[in-house]
């Protein structure tokens, strides 16, 4: 069976969609089709890939308008007779063809205060319970494919890259902030530097996450609630004034 692939070709200045015919085989994924095009028709087609198993997060693209990993998108789900449209991530500048410049994300990552564990116990070790770290281990599944960053309308449509860190880094901040051994206070950084208030929790990040991380429900909303504790809850504020307890009593 032959399928038409409409693939974005271009660089940071201009681009267009080029149609290619590929031979579809059983179990084929979109990344296979891109590789077939590279091997047989257009050797200069640029795409980023590595593991082809949905774990490296390299082959992110938009397939028929949906942000997805190319290696995890089977061709047979698109057998509607129309060309399969593959374009690079829209939220980031194109370097060439399907490859985008995602270096902005690494700059955002530098803003996050690192893990700061509490003092070791008398025997020189740390102890924590598995049930306490299960919560943050969900966030550690992130493969940094940046599909959530790409689909987030605050970055994609409103282009708030100077004010908003995006769901990936709110989740990373949550993984540190909720860690049972961590002692660092990141609440003001999350509110001001990562701009958590700009997220209006429309949950597109959760919908596209290939690791099924509940980004909004388990990451962003709990952080927003901690920010309410610190900045918007007069009852908590009064209680702290009376008891003299610190801003983050759980730390």
């Amino acid at each position, binding site marked *: 069976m032959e399928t038409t692939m409409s693939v*974005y070709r*271009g660089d*940071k*200045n*201009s*681009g267009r969609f080029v149609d290619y015919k590929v031979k579809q085989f059983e179990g084929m994924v979109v990344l296979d089709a891109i590789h077939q095009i590279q091997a047989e028709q257009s050797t200069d087609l640029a795409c980023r890939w590595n593991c082809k198993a949905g774990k490296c997060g390299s082959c992110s693209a*938009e397939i*028929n*308008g*949906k942000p997805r990993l190319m290696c995890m998108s089977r061709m047979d789900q698109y057998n509607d007779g*129309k060309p399969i*449209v593959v*374009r*690079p*991530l*829209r*939220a*980031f*500048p*194109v370097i060439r063809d399907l490859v*985008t410049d995602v270096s*902005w994300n690494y700059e955002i990552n530098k803003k996050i205060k690192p893990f700061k564990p509490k003092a070791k116990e008398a025997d020189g070790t740390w102890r924590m*319970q598995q*049930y*306490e770290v299960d919560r943050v281990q969900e966030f550690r599944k992130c493969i940094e494919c940046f599909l959530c960053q790409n*689909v987030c*309308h605050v970055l*994609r*449509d*409103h*282009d*708030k890259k100077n004010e908003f860190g995006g769901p990936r880094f709110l989740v990373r901040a949550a993984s540190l*902030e*909720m*860690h*049972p051994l*961590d002692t660092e206070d990141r609440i003001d950084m999350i509110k001001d530097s990562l*701009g958590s*208030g*700009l*997220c*209006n*929790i*429309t*949950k*597109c990040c959760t*919908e*596209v996450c290939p690791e099924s991380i*509940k980004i*909004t*429900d388990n990451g962003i*909303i*709990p952080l*927003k*609630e901690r920010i*309410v*504790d610190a900045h*918007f*809850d007069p009852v908590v504020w009064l209680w702290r004034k009376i008891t003299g307890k610190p801003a983050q009593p*759980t730390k």
Partner: protein
Amino acid sequence: MNSTATQTGLFSTDRRDKWWVGPLASGLGLAAFGAYSTWAAAIGVHYEFGPYLSPFYAPLIKWDAFPFSPAFLILWAPLGFRATCYYYRKAYYRAYFMDPPGCAVGEFRGHGYKGETSFPFIIQNVHRFFMYVAVLFIFMLGYDAVKAFTWDGQFGIGVGTIIMTINVLLLGSYTFGCHSLRHVIGGKTDCFSCTKFGPVKFQAWRGVSFLNSRHQLFAWCSLFSVGFTDFYIRMCSMGIFTDVRLL
């Protein structure tokens, strides 16, 4: 920093699926409920039948000096709870504000976007205060449901009794799955084994998390059940329906 591959404009997308069905259904559902509940609350009659009391009027406060329907004395609380609910925010930001209308679907682009950092949406941060009141309301509605088992001082069950009981169960499942409650009851704790009542907090957090993972489902089921409970009692009160006694 803009991608050169970016298309702009409201609803612009390469998506071929029916992405608009969800927001459209949410928008219509919320509008229908809003219209019915406003009407049912405003008319101020036919909200009681036998031991049944419409949830739009519960708890019933009869205050002679108040010139409007008694529903308006209490409805601000569930309205505020739902309006600031994290799930409903997603629903109406997509359906009414189109911000965004769907995932990877174009919207009105603009650098003036402030999200929930400024007025009016910064008010969403009061959600937990509405939650406290909503939890109280669940107990009051539970009391009304228990009262619905009593007919002229005798134990009895009518169809309305079952409807009121299911309604309070669905409302409870929605309210006790609230994101703010999940935070207050234990979610703000990082180290459960290091704090007082840590295991209790953890179990409470886990229970709320179970309901929270179905928050959208219970949000819609409870919205429907509240409207239907009022409708059923109203129809019985108007003599259009006959409440069948089961016991």
